[in-house]
């Protein structure tokens, strides 16, 4: 009896110790951290930090990705950016920005409703103005992603050594845009004075696509988002250690992983 109780206590203690390091997205040996604190940097200046979280409420429930706790010197932006993705293929189900009163400021979601092309539509609604709904019907076969879900989608891609260029329907603004991903392996990224071996994944937008197979030589493109995906051998997790974005005004933002919680 005593030995049984001791064993139970030991098991529970081990579980409690392991829990904080538990990884949520575990699929075909792919593991993603539960929480990451990112430093937000704009034009080489630290603005503050944000917390990126991954959660799942049940076996068949979607993954939920949240970016929140936007804090810096003297500011505290009380909004959460949430994206929900299918647990099977990580495709986007919904993406919304919600304030601390739990009011949605903006939302984009999938709905199985009749459209012109079929029975699946994406609806964008912005609550801060009187803008009408924007409905997007995607007929291309590429997975629909958004900025948050791309953290997971691209980490998974790198983790399974899928270096092939792939296309995605990236939700930006009010609708989706087809983007091309490219992977460069063994890119050393300097992180906290350590050179870390990463895979650089770039989401490119081509202004002119003439056909599905080959890009036109010299066709105009821009790098929309650049991810440096890192595999921490000690914990087995894959995650973007740095993300670089340029907004429509040409201003450069960086998210740099500061802490894995």
């Amino acid at each position, binding site marked *: 009896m005593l030995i049984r109780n001791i064993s139970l206590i030991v098991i529970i203690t081990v579980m409690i110790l392991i829990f904080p390091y538990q990884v949520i997205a575990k699929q075909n040996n792919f593991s993603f951290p539960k929480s990451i604190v990112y430093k937000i940097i704009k034009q080489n200046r630290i*603005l503050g930090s944000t917390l990126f979280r991954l959660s799942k409420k049940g076996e068949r429930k979607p993954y939920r990705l949240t970016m929140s706790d936007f804090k810096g010197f003297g500011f505290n*932006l009380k909004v959460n950016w949430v994206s929900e993705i299918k647990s099977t293929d990580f495709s986007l189900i919904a993406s919304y920005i919600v304030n601390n009163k739990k009011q949605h400021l903006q939302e984009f979601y999938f709905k199985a409703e009749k*459209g012109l*092309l079929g029975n699946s539509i994406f609806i964008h609604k912005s609550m801060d103005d009187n803008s009408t709904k924007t409905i997007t019907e995607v007929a291309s076969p590429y997975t629909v992603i958004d900025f948050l879900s791309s953290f997971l989608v691209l980490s998974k891609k790198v983790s399974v050594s899928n270096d092939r260029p792939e296309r995605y329907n990236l939700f*930006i603004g009010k609708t989706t845009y087809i983007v091309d991903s490219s992977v460069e392996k063994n890119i050393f990224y300097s992180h906290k004075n350590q050179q870390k071996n990463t895979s650089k994944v770039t989401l490119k937008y081509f202004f002119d696509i003439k056909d599905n197979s080959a890009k036109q030589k010299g066709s105009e493109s821009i790098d929309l988002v650049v991810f440096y995906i890192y595999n921490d051998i000690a914990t087995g997790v894959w995650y973007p250690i740095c993300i670089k974005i340029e907004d429509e005004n040409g201003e450069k933002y960086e998210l740099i992983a500061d802490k894995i919680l």
Partner: protein
Amino acid sequence: MIKQLLIILKLILVLSVFPLIMGNENCQIEQQLMDMLNQKIKPPKGKNSIYISHLTFMDPTTGTAMFQTEAGALINDAVINGINQAQKVNPSFKHNVSGHTLDDTDANVNKLINITFDPNINKRDKISRIISELMDPANIDVIVTGQYIEKGQIVDVRPLIIVKKEKKIVTKMAEYKKTEFLCSDPNNQSNKVLCQGAHEHISKLVKDLLEQL
């Protein structure tokens, strides 16, 4: 003594203005973050021309083009106005230029209706047929058209764009009371026109749609 006083005064001044400066900067940072959250990483417009044609709206209830209807012609005017407004903002938009025009004919609108309202065609085939049968022969990148649905006293107007490059359809929705949709022409009471609000709103929706390109 005076020098010290001046330094103290300067310090007081700086300290009193400091919260204002920081407050402003914090607001700016919050706004910048909101901009980032609102995903203002939209691709900038390319240098290439984007060829646009418009087709008269479709009535899904009857499965016909709205050529012979009063509302059809009036909506067309508002749509063309919206395309012109978008062209002013983005000169790479080319509307019905020589060699890049899909004629707004009964045959073309009916072809679009037959493809889109056929329940036996899947979405990928639908978009492929719209591209190969309508857009490629006309050398255009975007079709601007829409749906018009009457629901009792409500008029449901849905302007849409079909984008060849992205293989997608983007639609905006607007509902008007019938009394706020068709008004009498102030210059000729026997003629009907779109009420000012409806005309401007439809133009704006079309402009907004083209801004998503």
